[in-house]
């Protein structure tokens, strides 16, 4: 029983990391009908910007001088700003130019952008972080070794205590983000506008909804969610690589597809289902770790074939 509970808890934690990225996919797809394939890379970009900021704050001695909670909030704010900026740049240069084109085009464009983001992290993380640390802290500068080496991510959410504290915070933060998102999407004018665009963009335009502004706000909110997602993943893994975004994004996208690409609740269900499949296969099948990802992706393919609208997505019928 204890073994099963261990596995369930592991699956919930893993599911949280998948869910937030899946929500990013759902938000963008819901409002723009576009798969922004670099969501995972944007999240990892946020994590690395937080890591760079942490190194600089550490060089300045702020990590020990300021209350931990304040530092965490400051780091999160920095990560959010970077992710929002990257999200808006993604929209401006990788999606907007293809508004009138086939949906395949922004998909290809964001896949290529994901590669660019990964390589920029790998190439620029070390010189940018070390250069900035030298400028602001001089002789006290703390340096990172290389952007392509695995980086140690500070487990700030342990709050100086055990990893149990960190894990509970990860789940709690995920739940709070989901509730806030639910409130925003269902109880605010902007959220309702976004849902309206998601359902019928042309009609939304006719009713006076500012679609362009809604799309920009979607990227701002998506940036916030992805930054928090990257931060939680960093705290959970504690070791991060510049190319983590690739697999992280694929898992998040798969979760969104399984749950229902337009549906936020579907993203949660999809993320959890994928995580549970992976963990339970690893846990109960002999030598199951080797097959966990394969079986998880088989589940995705089965959903695409038999329930393409996802677990709680709505079936759409196109009249001709």
């Amino acid at each position, binding site marked *: 029983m204890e073994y099963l509970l*261990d596995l369930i808890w592991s699956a919930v934690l893993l599911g949280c990391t998948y869910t937030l990225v899946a929500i990013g996919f759902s938000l963008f797809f819901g409002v723009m009908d576009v798969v922004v394939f670099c969501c995972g890379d944007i999240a990892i970009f946020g994590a690395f910007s937080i890591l760079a900021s942490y190194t600089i704050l550490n060089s300045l001695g702020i990590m020990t001088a300021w209350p931990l909670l304040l530092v965490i909030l400051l780091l999160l704010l920095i990560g959010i700003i970077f992710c929002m900026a990257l999200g808006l740049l993604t929209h401006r240069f990788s999606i907007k130019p293809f508004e009138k084109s086939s949906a395949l085009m922004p998909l290809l464009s964001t896949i*290529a952008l994901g590669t660019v983001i990964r390589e920029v992290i790998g*190439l620029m993380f070390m010189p940018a972080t070390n250069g900035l640390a030298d400028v602001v802290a001089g002789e006290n500068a703390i340096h990172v*070794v290389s952007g392509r*080496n*695995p980086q140690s991510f500070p487990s700030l959410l342990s709050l100086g205590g055990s990893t149990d504290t960190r894990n509970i915070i990860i789940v709690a933060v995920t739940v709070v983000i989901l509730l806030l998102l639910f409130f925003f999407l269902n109880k605010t004018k902007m959220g309702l506008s976004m849902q309206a665009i998601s359902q019928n963009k042309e009609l939304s335009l006719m009713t006076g909804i500012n679609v362009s502004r809604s799309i920009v706000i979607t990227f701002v909110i998506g940036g916030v969610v992805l930054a928090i997602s990257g931060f939680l993943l960093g705290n959970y893994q504690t070791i991060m690589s510049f190319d983590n975004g690739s697999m992280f994004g694929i898992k998040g996208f798969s979760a969104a597809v399984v749950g229902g690409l337009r549906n936020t609740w579907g993203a949660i269900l999809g993320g959890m289902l994928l995580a549970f499949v992976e963990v339970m296969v690893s846990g109960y099948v002999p*030598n199951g770790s080797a097959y966990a990802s394969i079986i998880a992706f088989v589940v995705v393919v089965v959903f695409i074939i038999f329930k393409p609208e996802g677990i709680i997505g709505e079936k759409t019928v196109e009249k001709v």
Partner: protein
Amino acid sequence: MFKNSKWFLVTVVALIAVALLFTGCNQQTGETDEEGGNAASVVKIGFFAPITGGDAAEGTAARNAFQMAIDEANASGEYPYTIELIIIDDQGTDSVAVAGANQVVADPDVVAASGFWNSGPAAAASAVFKEAEIPLLIWGAIRDDLTNADNYPYITRSAPTASQENSASAAVVLDDLGYTDWFIVSDASDYGQGNLEVFTKELTDRGLTALGSEVVQEDATDFSAVVAKIKNSGAKAVYCGSTVEIASLLKLQLYEAGVTDILFAGISGMKTPDFLKIGAEAAEGALVVSPGVDLESTDAGRAFTEAYNNAGYSEPIGAYTPYAYEAALILLNALSACGDAPTPEAMVDAIINSETTGIFGTTTFDEIGQTTNVATYLNVVQDGQWMNYVNSEYANGTRSFGGK
């Protein structure tokens, strides 16, 4: 601006070009590599290592050591030509290694190559070198079958094999320390599979069977299910047959799950400074076999350490850094035997018949190109640092590994 597909295609191609520009920056040229050199006065050697990626710590230090030996040789004036390096960052990836190997063998000035820390890339590139009949001396990849009768005499190796390393490790953890309840974790790479087979054989030879084993994907980062499985298996010891990225995460996640009363033993691929990034407490007690001898225990080792540190490299010496240096010495020795105009053909014979005294003693090669100079020793993490096991508090009984 993007009203038609032409502009879309232009943009996509431009984005891909930018991406390839970044990913394609995998070739570096050694300090001695100068454009426009006279072909008669230049001899080139290819060098392969994972200079970026998860294994970069080991690869970069090896590159430094190899370069150091070549620079010393050029400065010595003993060679009537300039020795240039073509340094290829194989990124620990088969396809990149093969592309690099094709690039190296296509250069008419190349007479030999040395390389590889990862067994997969070494195996993949070996075929290219064998076909081109250019000798490849492996300095760091340990899968047993990389040197074999088919590849001989073109492929040789100066480092010990996985069997030789695991045998030394098994003698301590199975025979001396007496652990019998094992759980094996390896990765799906050639390196991981080789270690899984070899360590399983060590257990079988002693009449033991592992309580469980897991093969994890090379890009896996979440091992919570594996940790739960280890916990549930009742294992007293974990053998990790993988490289530093997976080994460090597994050790960390075991620690975080409270699985600390257990021996964590592994193979040389995890003995890099990167393993210590998980923190002193999480890394504590990790026991790993390393090739060669402890550099601090011999004059030659201390001299190498001093020379490396004086050269000002920022990357610390790793388990295979001395082997990269020794590989350079072996190739330099072979070059000396080939006279003023070495050729790949002459180098093949010169390498297999060479007798080179380096940091770890004298290296010669057996009938399949494997070094006859085999030495290993154990390291353990104590207070956040790798140290020689025999000098540690674990060896004198002050600390214990757990699981006993």
